[in-house]
């Protein structure tokens, strides 16, 4: 079972407390009227689907109910880090260094 660290509660808790919420750092279009069909497709449907470290959102649905971000390796399912929503994307090289 995944053990997930909620950066708001500062606790590491089992997976059933959390809901997965898809890829992280996908910004809503600033000016939707100006988007082409290709840009709408990319925003709505195209995902990185990374094999390896993946930036993703989780929600502590059965706890504080807040959304946060995580970096998880999709091959090993191991979390590299979790961080609060709105914070910048952590540097992957540093995270991987920390794993060694």
């Amino acid at each position, binding site marked *: *079972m*995944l053990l997930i660290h909620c950066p708001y509660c500062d606790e590491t808790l*089992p*997976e*059933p407390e959390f*809901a*997965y919420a898809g890829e992280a750092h996908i910004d809503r279009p600033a000016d939707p009227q100006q988007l082409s*069909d*290709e840009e*709408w*497709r*990319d925003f*709505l*449907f*195209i*995902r990185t*689907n990374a*094999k390896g470290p*993946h930036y*993703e959102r989780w929600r502590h649905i059965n706890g504080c109910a807040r959304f946060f971000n995580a970096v*998880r390796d*999709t*091959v*090993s*399912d191991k979390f590299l880090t979790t961080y609060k929503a709105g914070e910048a994307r952590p540097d992957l090289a540093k995270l991987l260094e920390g794993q060694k």
Partner: protein
Amino acid sequence: MTHFSAFSLLKNALGGHKNWDKQWPDSEPKSEYDVIIVGAGGHGLGAAYYLAKEHGITNVAVIEKGWLGGGNTGRNTTIIRSNYLYDESAGLFDHALDLWQNLSRELNYNIMYSNRGVMMLAHNVHDVQSFKRHIHANRLNGVDNQWLTKEEAKEYCPPLNISPDARYPVMGAALQKRAGTARHDAVAWGYARQAAMRGVDIIQNCPVTAIRRGPDGVVEGVETARGFIKAKKVAVSAAGHTSVLMDSAGIRMPLESYPLQALVSEPVKPIFPCVVMSNTVHAYISQSDKGELVIGSGTDQYTSYSQRGGLPLIEHTVAAICEVFPIFNRMRMLRKWGGIVDVTPDRSAILGKTPAKGLYVNCGWGTGGFKATPGAAHVLAWTVAKDEPHKLNAPFTLERFRTGRLIDEAAAAAVAH
């Protein structure tokens, strides 16, 4: 290669079963092919078979990173049905169901297709209305599906608990009688044997690492662990790894890969005559010919390539089965496993051409690819051979995510399907 028959079985029985031929050779890659298919699952091997048989294209290689049929073909719960709501899906899945009926004879290989019926339970008023709508839509499309009262459902499937006191009472069921199960490994083996007999190379333990395109964007071949292999056409049929491969060709896909788990119980005497699915309680169950109860439900919530999945989902699945079939609450489970399924935003497959000339894709079958095997393979072969889609897969384009012409089975089924 030996033609399998009662006579060949008898002959080999007398020889102590020591003289059977190898069913297909383990080929070494040549430097060039007309068509390379990436992924030796049922879909890929089937496409190679139909390319050779119906289109006369035999300079074909099927390249597999692991062993033949070791991906989702060997990991699913073998359920076959075609009672889909939308015209596009019903057409494609019913084409597959037509091919399933006679596949053992066609392949000279017992795939153990059993049209024991797939029953979908209705537990509330919404289920009843939604299934009746499906039945009417299916009837208009010529797809077999019928409504059963709860008493009729009990008669068709005696282990069913139709007591009004059940936590999720059964209010009726939709039954597709022509649907059923097949022996999944045998489907891959049967196609592999027939394809190899017609000259197709099956190359195992050879991961394809990238798809190479020329400066004009046309496909040139594939990079593999055993070096570059040239090809005029490449068809990707790699399930959960499709987006990784397509990325290497510079094409981003509307796919996400999730673990889908299944489990089997210890084998018991025949008790369960058909396939039962409950979308509301969310699990499905059948009994294999070996006697194991074969159980599954939806995907894990998070994307992953781990082929494992988490235990919370197994607990949810088994709890759902025990709710619907309390008689199984003391069954012991034997093993569980996971496969990586590629899910599209509208839960319908992508089967057709791509922006790269000479590159074709068959993916996005999500949690329901096994049932489509012969149909998908058949129209994929057509698409590759003629460089244009068959009328059955024409709506299943990659382009639909730009135009918005989705085939929204996600909304129709309300669960993974």
